[in-house]
């Protein structure tokens, strides 16, 4: 593989919890949230890596680590071969030009009191110190590339629809011509029809500008469409990593299988089935010993509860990584097998009677 554009190596991020006064006086060790635990991922030039997982799995934290919006507790964050893990001040500002981020919430991430040219041009003012007229010119040239009219320079964000706001966010990220864009749930606040417009635009921009993306989402379908490789996260760790088609068509980790089985597909005939994975995501403050998915896994064995599976290349496969003791045995278990084979009894809908 060629030199990675951006890379995290064994990176860990803990967030300390506030401690009760008594515990602080007694100098007890602080409880921490284990948001990201020893994760390694690399993103090549022009590549899109999808990051899927549920809320609390550490996807957003990992994205922020790539953008160095968080400083890692341990481990290394590299950008273009350079260690940026603990940069500060102007050195950190320099790398901002090369990594930009599109935030999840298109309402909360746009200042309602600023006009479009101010919002989209803010990185230009902050990082390139351009003057007002230059910023306006650059923004006017930029807006059409994300599918917005150049004449909307003086509008306010509330005049745009959800999709329009997400385009503004994207334009702002692209304004300083970054190499890597972190897309944090870029479409989850949008309706399906608008989602498709944004995803298409992202793919077109990547081709034109040679961008790399880290696409953080819980939308498996969006990953399938946009990403080259995909990492599945569960409880701060990577459960599975590999080519997007490999992982989504032949998932190895039971959690990936469960996630794919849980996606409600608009296909008739899949209805009225029981989903076999139960239970909730365990606490990030006291992560369980052994495999984090053990409590919910339908294929759990004793070993899973005591010995933590490490991310490894499964036997007989290439370019795939999985953190499961039983990955090889479970190769042939399809996501659909996690749905009970028999439909729920007693269903007598008109649709089925036909």
């Amino acid at each position, binding site marked *: 593989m060629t030199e990675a554009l951006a890379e995290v190596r064994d990176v860990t991020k803990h967030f300390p919890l506030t401690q009760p006064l008594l515990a602080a006086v007694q100098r007890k060790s602080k409880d921490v949230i284990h948001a990201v635990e020893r994760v390694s991922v690399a993103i090549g030039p022009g590549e899109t890596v999808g990051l899927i997982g549920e809320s609390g799995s550490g996807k957003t934290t990992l994205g922020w680590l790539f953008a160095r919006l968080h400083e890692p507790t341990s481990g290394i964050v590299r950008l273009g071969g350079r260690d940026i893990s603990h940069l500060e001040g102007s050195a950190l500002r320099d790398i901002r030009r090369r990594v930009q981020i599109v935030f999840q919430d298109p309402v909360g991430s746009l200042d309602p009191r600023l006009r479009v040219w101010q919002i989209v041009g803010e990185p230009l003012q902050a990082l390139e110190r351009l003057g007002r007229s230059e910023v306006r010119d650059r923004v006017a040239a930029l807006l059409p590339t994300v599918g917005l009219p150049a004449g909307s320079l003086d509008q306010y964000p509330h005049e745009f629809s959800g999709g329009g706001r997400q385009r503004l966010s994207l334009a702002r990220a692209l304004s300083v011509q970054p190499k890597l864009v972190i897309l944090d749930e870029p479409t989850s606040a949008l309706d399906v029809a608008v989602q498709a417009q944004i995803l298409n635009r992202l*793919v077109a921009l990547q081709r034109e500008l040679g961008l790399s993306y880290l696409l953080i989402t819980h939308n498996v*379908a969006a990953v399938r469409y946009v990403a080259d490789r995909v990492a599945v996260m569960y409880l701060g760790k990577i459960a599975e990593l590999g080519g997007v088609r490999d992982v989504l068509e032949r998932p190895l980790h039971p959690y990936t299988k469960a996630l794919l089985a849980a996606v409600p597909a608009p296909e008739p005939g899949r209805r009225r089935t029981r989903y076999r994975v139960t239970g909730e995501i365990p606490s990030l403050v006291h992560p369980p010993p052994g495999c984090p998915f053990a409590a919910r896994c339908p294929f759990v064995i004793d070993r899973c509860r005591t010995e933590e599976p490490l991310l490894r290349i499964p036997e007989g496969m290439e370019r795939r990584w999985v953190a499961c003791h039983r990955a090889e045995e479970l190769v042939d278990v399809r996501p659909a097998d996690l749905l009970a084979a028999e439909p729920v009894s007693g269903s007598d809908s008109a649709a089925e009677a036909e």
Partner: protein
Amino acid sequence: MLPPQPQPRRGPRGDVVAEPLLEVKGLSVDYEVGAGTFHALSDVSLELPAGHVVGIVGETGCGKSTLAHAIPRLLREPPARIRSGEVRFRGMDLLTLPKWKLPLVRGTGISMVFQEPINSLNPAFRVFDQLAEAVRIRKMRESGQAPGLVPGSEGFDYSKREGPKPADALTRPLLPSRPEARKGFSRVLHRVDFREDALDYLRLVRINDPETILDLYPHELSGGMRQRIMIAMALSEKPSLLIADEPTSALDITIQAQVLTLMKELIEEIRTSILFISHDLGVIAEMADDVGVMYAGHLVEFGPVDDVYEHPRHPYTKALLRSAPNQYKDDGPLPSLPGSVPNLSRLPSGCSFHPRCPLAKPVCSDDPGPVLEVQKGTAAGHEAACYFSEEVAGLP
């Protein structure tokens, strides 16, 4: 006073057909705000037979939630204004019912599950208080100690029940005033009498360790747990109709699958009817028997869910189904719908979809627009509001 009993319904051959549980006829709702009048619902009609699950699907701002709130009359008026229409629930027109009687219908008659469980649970009360209160109200209504509508015949056994029959529940005064009227009222029941029932309902929604959970406050629970408690509360009322407004949209995907599986099991266990509102085509496919597709406040297509998904007869339904990335198979761009949803205060003339429609012809912009019509060559009950519905199958 109950409204006059409706005439028996006649089927196509003149035979008497069972009254649907819920019937919405020509419902139009406006929001009057400073910026103008927004037509949130325009002439929406649909029927929900007892024991059925009807899904409503559409994009943000298409009027789904307005419909969900208009049926039990939970809209704040003003700014909302019900312009016209009828909502017949078990033979009563809810829109003409005096306001003070509405609480008697809600709960045991129509119950709701909202999108954000954290906004619907009271943060100042424990799970126990909120759940036991729902059980208490139902028990008091069932035993006739409190007025309120309880299900009459949908699979519940009321033969052993003492007190007034459900039919006259609405005509009784809220509180018995004269001593002789109080005779049947042994004592006012309290929430603490229903701890066991509350535990049962927590077990029903598959909550582990219900004794502990019962004494927690909503903020101490996870999102999936809160939503299951909302569902437990709604079900503990044993409603004839459950309106679920995006009940799983705030949940994670594996938790969503758990909650949907649970709801499906419960539908069969207690035979409640559900109006299921979602923007997710996949969720509707899993849950609903019939589906209604809404666009800009109009119901543009309605029918059995499999038939609508396989043979859409409205160009909007077709476009919506195609743009779901789940359907994406080949290389090339995702099919997307050009343009955006019209402003509800300035709806286009005729069919509201015509500015974005690939099949649009001059006739489509003429008022009044197309209305729902039965579609030939499709499953029974499949209707679409499009002049060129025959041509939809030919669209890419």
